[in-house]
């Protein structure tokens, strides 16, 4: 069985899509924010690999073609952004203010909590890029002397978590303005959060797309100052 699956060129793609289909079905049935189809798909695929005893590399040999689409998809985030360009021009002060606050709070809170939880210096710098998009975060982690796999893991976890709890967090902190909600999703949960924000609404999706690019660039510019603090 293992050998047959190991040679199947479409196994990884098929099992990922099947997991996501189940996730969509559960979301429709349960109608609760924690029933996030992406989270359900990840857990189901992990479970399937463990139960069937299939190596991640074997799975990824086929599933990597899904990741391959990520760059053109990210490029397409410019489309909702273009459609909301007037809104961006009108609210540019709130956009800049919100995103600077987001990046500052991210770096400062990672620093504070790393000290509090006694993380090592290496773990601390690996977590600094956790709220920005994977492609920028990986390069930044390397530059700061972090563990790149830990950075990627923390970025993915942050994204999935943000997508799942984002609406609850916005409700809790009474963030109702659609521009502010979108910025909050993008600044904290990058592209994964943005894929959720796009489902909430066009304005939210556009502002979240914008936040990925701007927050990523601000973080690159200032993160190296934080390396020496702990």
């Amino acid at each position, binding site marked *: 069985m293992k050998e047959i699956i190991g040679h199947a060129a479409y196994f990884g793609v098929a099992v990922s899509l099947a997991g996501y289909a189940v996730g969509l079905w559960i979301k429709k049935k349960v109608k609760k924010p924690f029933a996030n189809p992406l989270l359900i798909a990840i857990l189901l695929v992990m479970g399937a690999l463990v139960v069937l005893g299939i190596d991640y590399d074997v799975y990824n040999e086929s599933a990597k073609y899904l990741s391959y689409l990520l760059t*053109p998809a990210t490029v*397409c985030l410019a489309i909702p952004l273009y459609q909301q360009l007037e809104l961006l021009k009108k609210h540019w002060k709130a956009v800049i203010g919100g995103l600077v606050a987001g990046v500052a709070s991210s770096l400062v809170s990672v620093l504070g909590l790393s000290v509090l939880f006694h993380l090592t210096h290496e*773990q601390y710098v690996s977590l600094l890029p956790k709220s920005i998009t994977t492609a920028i975060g990986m390069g930044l982690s390397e530059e700061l002397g972090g563990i790149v796999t830990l950075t990627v893991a923390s970025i993915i976890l942050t994204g999935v978590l943000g997508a799942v709890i984002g609406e609850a967090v916005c409700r809790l902190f009474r963030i109702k303005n659609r521009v502010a909600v979108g910025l909050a999703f993008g600044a904290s949960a990058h592209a994964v959060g943005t894929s959720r924000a796009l489902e909430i609404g066009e304005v939210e999706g556009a502002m979240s797309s914008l936040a990925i690019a701007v927050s990523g660039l601000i973080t690159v510019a200032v993160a190296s100052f934080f390396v020496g603090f702990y």
Partner: protein
Amino acid sequence: MGALMEFAIILGVTLAAELLHALLPLPVPASIYGMILMLTLLATGAVKLEKVKRAGGYLLEIMPVMFIPAAVGLLEIITDMKGALLPIAGVIVLTTIIVMAATGRTAQWIMDREAAKKR
């Protein structure tokens, strides 16, 4: 032909972005160059919205699926990180909430103030 042409334009912009990433010595990934490039092309009218809207919308709709392989890769490093798993998870959960709240509250506060001034 229409859909194929739309994908061709999107992949063309992606390719141009990869070239920019290779040529410019900045820590900016191809996807961000591509996003800026696509926005510029749309805003200047060099590419009409109708020429990329359908294929682009489709890619954005299936975007969550594209994160599954990388996230499943967490299986690989969970065992390496055993001792530090709990504190690292704590940092991730708390900062995610803090960043969302800080970004959203600040943006909303600025917009509320602007709205109040106009009145």
